């Protein structure tokens, strides 16, 4: 496969403040790549370096095989970009704004532009300053999409969009991928990434902590297991089992986190009178939060019963 985006030891410092440190990425043609991280982790910094809006302190980045600092305009010809926060010309209407950006690029298919306006249900006759936050986001998305770029760089693309428009956006993203084009989207909304991305990178404090397929990330993660016994809980017996951690007993219920195969837990539980067994496959959100050392969600496993076997909450 061809690398569309490639970074090597990409580092950016803003004076004494950390931007990103030693980021290595390879994003291949035709994939939707999610870039996950909390606020201030370095997502936007990475994207802005790819656009040559920022110059790396060290390391390098290439897009379409072109060094970002060498010929950014050649890169810009083939990308569509939506910033996380942006403003446009207050006095222009949405339609005039789209026309101007189409003219800056050239070669925009008017019929396709019109279809995007229709799919996003945008009124192009209103001035930009009169739009709501969501409608401004729609204008930004159409600007990014209207020239059918080879690569989409989208920084938190669904911010401000209502659920129906989000669906429209995800459908468009699928169309883009079906046509063999590539998308790189940053987000801190895990459901969004889980639904749309092939691969995910998790960035924390400016450094990548994980890059993998969405499925693999989930497989790598733990299972939350809840065992309900008829009698006193044999805590010590479970604590010594391989792959088991965070064992917590309350009343006759045992909560534990399991990494790896489930067989030893089932065998140990079978030696006691077991009333209920719940194993919950973690969501990407829980995986993500686990990476950041936090307890996954407030809705714990004890409240989600899936009788007779493992349950899925996503």
């Amino acid at each position, binding site marked *: 496969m061809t690398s569309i985006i490639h970074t090597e030891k990409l580092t950016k410092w803003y004076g004494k403040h950390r931007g990103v440190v030693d980021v290595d990425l390879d994003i291949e043609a035709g994939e939707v790549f999610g870039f996950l991280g909390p606020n201030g982790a370095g997502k936007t910094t990475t994207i*802005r370096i790819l*656009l040559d*809006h*920022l*110059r790396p302190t060290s390391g390098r980045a290439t897009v379409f095989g072109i060094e970002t600092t060498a010929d*950014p*305009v050649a890169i*810009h*010809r083939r*990308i*569509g*970009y939506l*910033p996380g*926060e*942006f*403003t*446009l*010309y207050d*006095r*222009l209407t949405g339609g*005039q704004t789209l*026309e*101007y*950006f189409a*003219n*800056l*690029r050239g070669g925009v298919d008017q019929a396709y532009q019109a279809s995007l306006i229709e799919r996003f249900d945008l009124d192009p006759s209103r001035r930009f300053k009169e739009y709501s936050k969501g409608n401004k986001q729609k204008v*930004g998305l159409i*600007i990014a999409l209207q020239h059918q770029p080879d690569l989409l*760089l989208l920084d938190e693309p669904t911010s401000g969009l209502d659920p129906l428009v989000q669906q429209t956006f995800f459908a468009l993203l699928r169309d883009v991928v079906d046509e063999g084009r590539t998308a790189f989207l940053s987000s801190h909304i895990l459901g969004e990434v889980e639904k749309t991305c092939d691969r995910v990178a998790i960035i924390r404090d400016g450094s990548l902590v994980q890059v993998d397929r969405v499925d693999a990330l989930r497989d790598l993660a733990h299972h939350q297991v809840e065992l309900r016994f008829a009698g006193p809980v044999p805590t010590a017996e479970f604590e010594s089992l391989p792959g088991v951690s965070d064992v917590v007993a309350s009343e006759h219920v045992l909560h534990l986190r399991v990494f790896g195969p489930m067989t030893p837990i089932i065998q140990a539980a079978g030696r006691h009178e077991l009333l209920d067994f719940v194993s919950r496959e973690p969501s990407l959100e829980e995986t993500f939060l686990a990476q950041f050392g936090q307890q996954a969600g407030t809705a714990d496993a004890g409240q989600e019963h899936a009788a007779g076997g493992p349950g899925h909450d996503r």
Partner: protein
Amino acid sequence: MTVEMGRPPISAPRPRLSITSRLFGFGSIYGKTIRDSRLATIMVTGLITGLVLGAGKAVAAAFDTPTARIELANLANSMPPVLAGLAGNPVNVGTLGGYFEWKYGATFAIIAALWSILALSSTLAGEARQGSLDLVAAAPFGKRRIAIEKLAAHLTAMTISMVVLAVACWVAGAAFGTVLGDEIPASAAIGFALWVGLIALVSGSIAWVLGPLVGRGAAVGFAAAIMFGGYIVSGYAASVPAFATIANLTWFHWTANHLPLAGQYDWISLVPVAIVAIVLFLLGVELFERRDLGETTTVRSPSLPPAALGLRSPVGRAFGEQIPVALSWGLGIGLFGFVVAAASRSFGDELVKQAPGFITVVKTIYPDFDITNAGGFLQLVFVEFGFIIAGFAAANFVGRWASDETSGRIEMLLATPLSRARWLQAGGIGAFLAVGAMTVIFALAVAFGAGLAGSQVVTPFLGSFSLALFALAMVGVGVGAGGLFRTSFAAEIVALVVIATFLIDLLAPALKLPDWVHQLALTAHLGQPMVGTWDPAGIILCLGIAVGGVLLGTWGMARRDLAD
């Protein structure tokens, strides 16, 4: 169906605020506004204090004997009102305070008034526009209280500044006085500072009251026009009969006899100024209370025709963004120029009656300079202020260009095949075109006024383009600084250069500073364009700075990160 809502929750009492929190301005809207205005307060206070002490020392040193003072007083007193113009009536000019009051008094009032206009237009209207006022207004305070606290903060800052000004005046008299009568008593220093503060606040009160109605930019424009217009009209009321009636409406005219540094007091004249300011302040508070937050005029501004929006190219778009402000500046300066040019006949007639000898002297020195026609009067009255206003217009154009980056629009623009260099050059050319559009408008107005006065129109029309040259150079300074460093302070740099140029041009000859100091002012190199005398070196210098600024900005822009 009725729904029992239960008792309303009792809000928690406000926590006691720490001393640190209060000192750093986080304890109240008042404190935060003081905090936000600290830099402006320090700058204005520093500027006027420096001027008082610097000019006081220089004046005392330049005229250090009783004989020199008598000659100075005789010169000033022999000047008919038609020539004294904006300086007003000379009173006790032989003393340090009297000379200071006559020569520079109004300059302090104008500096402080500009500060007040900018501060009071932005404290509510500007904050409403950027959205931060929504958050403040969501706090458990009424809108009236927010407005009053913000107003009180500016009054506090102005009071601090004026107290320092009074102390500086007193110190200047005590430290630099060289002849008898140079001492400036405390009452005179306080009277002068009070006058400066009131003139500043009444000018700012216009911006304050208009801000919630028409938005920040328009409020600044109206308030500045009224302030400058009032100053000009009042200054020339004695020599231009057409101004006499309007002058009675200006606070400069009301207080014309209050010259405390010269030992002449007219405290009563300050009362109407204070009353007008208080009424406008209260009106502004009420308007803010009663109107929707951040909603300015409901009259939709007319849209430009599609062809003027410049959707086809970056240069066209950059110019399209500037057109509305260019038209506004052109009309504003044009109105000023038209009034001055149209009044030139009255001025000429008065001059022939009052100072025929002066006309002869001027003719001897400058054979082409006929001070009695429109060109001569424009050169005397319009050009100096015209340079300042055109310079501020340039700062405005630079600010609009810079807004691409400061607003974050550049993120999307530079994600297209538009290079950094092309973006900067297109923005610079757009600002140059804005200067051109503005100049054509006010040059036509000047020519029209000159025609009405019966003077020839071509020379004043062409002379008006000297202001364009200065404005082009200032655009070059702003675009250069913006490209090289950051665009967020490019407009401020231009404004500072304009003010510095004005002060150098004003003070260097008067204080007999070395000639090279005066030559630092770009406006000292533009000849007397309204009477057809041009200085080629100045033209080349202005164009060089304009083009050089864009080239320097292009070089810098290629080497730096975009702003966050």
